[in-house]
């Protein structure tokens, strides 16, 4: 009949438990290196480059509004201020970074007939009647809309 393990042998054996935990942890990390650390990172980078920053963040099913950002980038000078209103959580959060160095300025802080904000011209759009009017980006949580003031 085998002898029962002595307490000292038991205590010697117990330090192997954290060794096993450490090795399993390391193994889990190593296993993810090819597929996730490299694979998924490379795939994210390719996706970002293919869709551009606006499309990457605001061109999916969860958040929309990439076309609003692209319109601003194409039509608004870099030193301009762009008005905004609506929900600041969600899609609108991405706009300041995507349109920088243009500034996103709260509509209520700018007088109704103003053409500039602290020396920066307001972003404007020419309407069907030939008039140029300031544009306002409206935050809708999961989308953006471009309106005229």
């Amino acid at each position, binding site marked *: 009949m085998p002898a029962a393990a002595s307490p*000292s042998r038991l*205590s*010697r054996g*117990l*330090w192997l*438990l*954290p*060794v096993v*935990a*450490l*090795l*399993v*942890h*390391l193994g*889990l*990390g*190593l296993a*993810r*290196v090819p597929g*996730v*650390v*490299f694979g*998924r*990172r*490379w795939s*994210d*980078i390719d996706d*970002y*480059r293919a869709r551009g*920053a606006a499309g*990457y*963040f605001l061109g999916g099913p969860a958040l929309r509004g990439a076309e609003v950002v692209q319109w601003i980038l194409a039509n608004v000078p870099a030193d301009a201020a762009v008005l*905004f209103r609506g929900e*600041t959580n969600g899609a*609108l*959060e*991405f*706009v*300041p*970074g995507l349109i*920088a*160095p243009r*500034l*996103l*300025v*709260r509509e209520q*802080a*700018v007088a109704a007939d103003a053409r500039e*904000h*602290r020396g*920066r011209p307001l972003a404007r759009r020419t309407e069907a009647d030939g008039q140029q009017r300031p544009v306002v980006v409206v935050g809708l949580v999961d989308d953006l809309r471009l309106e005229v003031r």
Partner: protein
Amino acid sequence: MSSLSWAERLLLGSLAGIALFAVAAHALLALSLAVPAHLLTGSLLLGLLVPWRIPAMPAAAPAPRWLASALGLVLVAALVAIAHGALATPSRHWDGAVAWDTTARFLVAAPTLEQPYFRDAAVFAHSRDYPLLQPLLVATLERLCGGAGRLLFPGLFALLALLVGTTLRRATANASLAWLGTAATMLTPMLVNPTSGGIDSGYGEGFLLLCTTAIAAGFVQKDARLLLLGTLLAVLVKPEGIVYAGAATAVAFCTAERRLLCGAAAGWLLGAVAWLPLQRGLLQPEAGTSCGWFVVAAGGIGALLACADALARRAALGPRGRLAAAAVLLPVLLLALPLVASGVGASGGAMQSYLAEPGRLLQRSARLPAIVVGVLHYALFRGGFGLAYWLPLVALFGAWSRRASFAALGLFVLAGLGIVVMPFLMGQETDLQHQLRSSMPRLLLHWLGPTMLLGVTMLGQCRERSSTEAQPHRGASPEAQR
């Protein structure tokens, strides 16, 4: 890892250089001046040229060559992936893109706060009150390295690896264990995966992890310099940092070692005096950036700590007495500075929003079991942290001899996990499950380094004890063995 003094010098020099840059840059910003790019070059050079005193490394058999080579190669591969992830595009994750990158972008164009993005309350600036050190470093590197500002992130990864590796080598006196522990820490999925909060995601979590790990390494190595640098940088990296640094100071008080207490408190209070006036100026430009109230508050807290330490010495308080005294001091240490910041006009910030309605703490106490289950779920059962949080728990089975070297670190980790619960009790968010999902993995990432250091240090001590117990058997006479 046979001769690591160069690595420890590089580590201390880099951290000190970053800290020097941080303090000088914050002073310039408070004076409404621009931060010159070569301030970083000069600070790093100065930090690296200081002849740091490095204690002799405990003797240990070298790790097998194959082990060191294989794990070193994997770490270099991970570093390459992170460097590519950081440099190939701007941030590809939410907070990185909306807050951190945007702040850095405006600082690249003009490295000063005297511009509408920071000073005009009508301008939409996400997380306006967030600490500026990381965007400042990215912007400065961007100007120095021709657009490669996000080199910061692989740099932080490399510093973290050096910190974990050298600390484990010292704490365990076992080169193989140091290599295994370092690789295991650095390959933890939540840190290296391309995910929100990951090291190259652009978030501040990786930098804050470096700070908490430096604090933990300071406790393990009883090195006041690491404690000072860790607490100072933590305050300047993320809003949570000021609370973590306060907790580190409380733990340093428990160690009864005056130099550790001085190191932790000095870094924490200096960081607060450098950052809080700027934060107030960002939230309320009309309030200005005068630091008078913050100097008074920091001086008061410093005096309180000095008195408490002197009284504890006079009463010859043991570890339990100090722990009880620290428990009394803890609310003051954690909340005093954010409360002063709110009191002098910096309301509306992320940290202050938690303090806006103290009654929430009682109203939401019924949530506590669900929050604790959430912490355990994300720490132990989700893949993001592998077995990192299991390791100290499992090591406890084998660690009969409680050594002071990990008592302080264990206390720091426990304090950290306690703090992790607080945002869920005090925050404005009402949907607990959503808050757990979006915040818990990132909050737990802050404590990955201290937890891994704790787990592997305990493991090393279990092994040491096991070897000691085995000695009489090996050394016994042949007669006795028969």
